[in-house]
């Protein structure tokens, strides 16, 4: 039976796109399966089709909709869809984080939440990436939400050969190691906390670690401020790489001393899973789905923790080999629970039950 998928945005390296591609590989086994996107990046046009190519003739087929942002035209199309609609909910970021920097985007986020209610009568099965995300659906009247991070692949970066050029460059740049933070550069990702914490690690604790910030710069105002702030506090002790491909990211993560996750809001943190899978000790703030994602495979700091507390945690882990070794081991174990095929099999089983 042909089952298609719809995502809002699609790009190389984008977490939801990667998840949809993994799901497609499974769906292809039982028939034709395509991915359609409202905003496809040119880098994925050989894999992802623009939404206008989703023809009306297809509308008796099953559609898996990856919800993360609201687009009214798409909602209207989904409401009129004659075939079965399956929801895979990846979390919609609360709009208040964007109100001051991009009110139009904030409006899309507000609609994304509203859309969940509009689509509810149409949805035959709902999946959520995490229990945290599932609670978003439950309070909107959904029942029988299955928690399944479908399409997540904890081994995605593990098998990639490192990029020697990048490894050498960063080894030369930060001979005593570096802390890495991976995320889109947006205010709610709180990269400034990572900058301040590393500053204190260097100045107060006397550990000469660098900071590498990886991620696409989505807000010029915010990323400009982070860059200027880091230049002031860390001088040459930091780098902002922008978006990287999987191989580059794998290389940088693999060689990092530690991973830092400072976000204010996480529906499911893929870079955290990648870090654990690659044996990088992780320190993360306890927000959203972070605790359930990392289990005991990472060090959780309280949501209220400031730069000083985070710096102390970094220093403790950097100085104590036994803590680091234990963390790496627990991280490996935890990452195994995000094994792609295991999750995809569960997804197929659940799907076949409702689509009989």
């Amino acid at each position: 039976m042909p089952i298609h998928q719809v995502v809002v945005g699609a790009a190389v390296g984008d977490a939801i796109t990667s998840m949809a591609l993994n799901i497609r590989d499974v769906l292809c086994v039982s028939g034709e399966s395509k991915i359609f996107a409202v905003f496809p990046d040119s880098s994925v046009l050989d894999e992802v089709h623009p939404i206008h190519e989703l023809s009306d003739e297809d509308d008796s087929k099953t559609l898996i909709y990856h919800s993360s942002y609201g687009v009214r035209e798409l909602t209207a199309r989904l409401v009129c869809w004659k075939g079965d609609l399956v929801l895979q909910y990846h979390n919609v970021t609360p709009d208040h984080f964007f109100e001051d920097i991009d009110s139009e985007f904030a409006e899309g986020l507000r609609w994304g939440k509203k859309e969940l209610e509009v689509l509810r009568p149409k949805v035959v099965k709902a999946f959520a990436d995490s229990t945290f995300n599932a609670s978003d659906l439950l309070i909107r009247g959904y029942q029988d939400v299955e928690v399944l991070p479908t399409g997540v692949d904890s081994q995605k970066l593990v098998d990639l050969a490192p990029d020697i050029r990048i490894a050498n460059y960063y080894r030369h740049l930060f001979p005593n190691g570096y802390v890495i933070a991976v995320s889109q550069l947006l205010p709610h990702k709180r990269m400034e906390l990572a900058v301040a914490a590393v500053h204190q690690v260097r100045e107060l604790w006397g550990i000469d670690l660098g900071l590498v910030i990886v991620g696409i710069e989505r807000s010029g105002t915010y990323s400009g401020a982070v860059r200027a702030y880091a230049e002031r506090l860390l001088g040459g002790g930091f780098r902002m790489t922008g978006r990287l491909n999987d191989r580059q990211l794998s290389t940088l993560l693999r060689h990092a001393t530690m991973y830092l996750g400072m976000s204010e809001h996480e529906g499911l943190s893929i870079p955290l899973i990648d870090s654990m899978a690659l044996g990088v000790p992780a320190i993360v703030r306890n927000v959203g789905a972070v605790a359930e994602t990392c289990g005991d495979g990472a060090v959780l700091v309280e949501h209220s923790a400031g730069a000083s507390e985070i710096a102390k945690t970094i220093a403790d882990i950097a100085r104590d080999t036994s803590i680091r070794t234990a963390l790496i081991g627990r991280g490996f174990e935890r990452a195994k629970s995000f094994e792609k095929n295991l999750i995809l099999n569960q997804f197929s089983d659940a799907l076949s039950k409702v689509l009989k």
Partner: protein
Amino acid sequence: MEAPQVPNPIGADAQYDLLFRSYLNSGEKTGELLSQIEAQLTEIQSQLTRVRIASATTSRFPGGSIAHRLFRRLLRRHLGESLEAVSRANHLTVESIRLTVKLWEDIYRHEIEMERRTRSGMLDRLAVVDAMQIQLELLEEDLSDLRSKD
């Protein structure tokens, strides 16, 4: 190894926060500053207009009105020319501020691009060094093979 206990510096987190906010706000201030300057220049212009209107007076002295009319005409022409000059200066000032801001932005973008190119150039050079290192190792192996054959 036991980590030395270093107390958290009191107030450091608040200081970090303040410093970051100053960087975050400075990016948003440019537009605000421009509109403030424009508003002030408009205010100056309207005050000058009020001065010109106020200069339209009549004389109470006999025979004074011709001299006053002449004086008023001269004053009006003078003020009119001054007003135009101020208006042109206003426009030029606003334009030059706009251009300066644009120039800053271009320089900043250029610096970022240069940094990116430098980084990519360095990576390329490191790759060349890597390749040369491998070639060197291969040559050394060949050399030792040749020596062993001799």
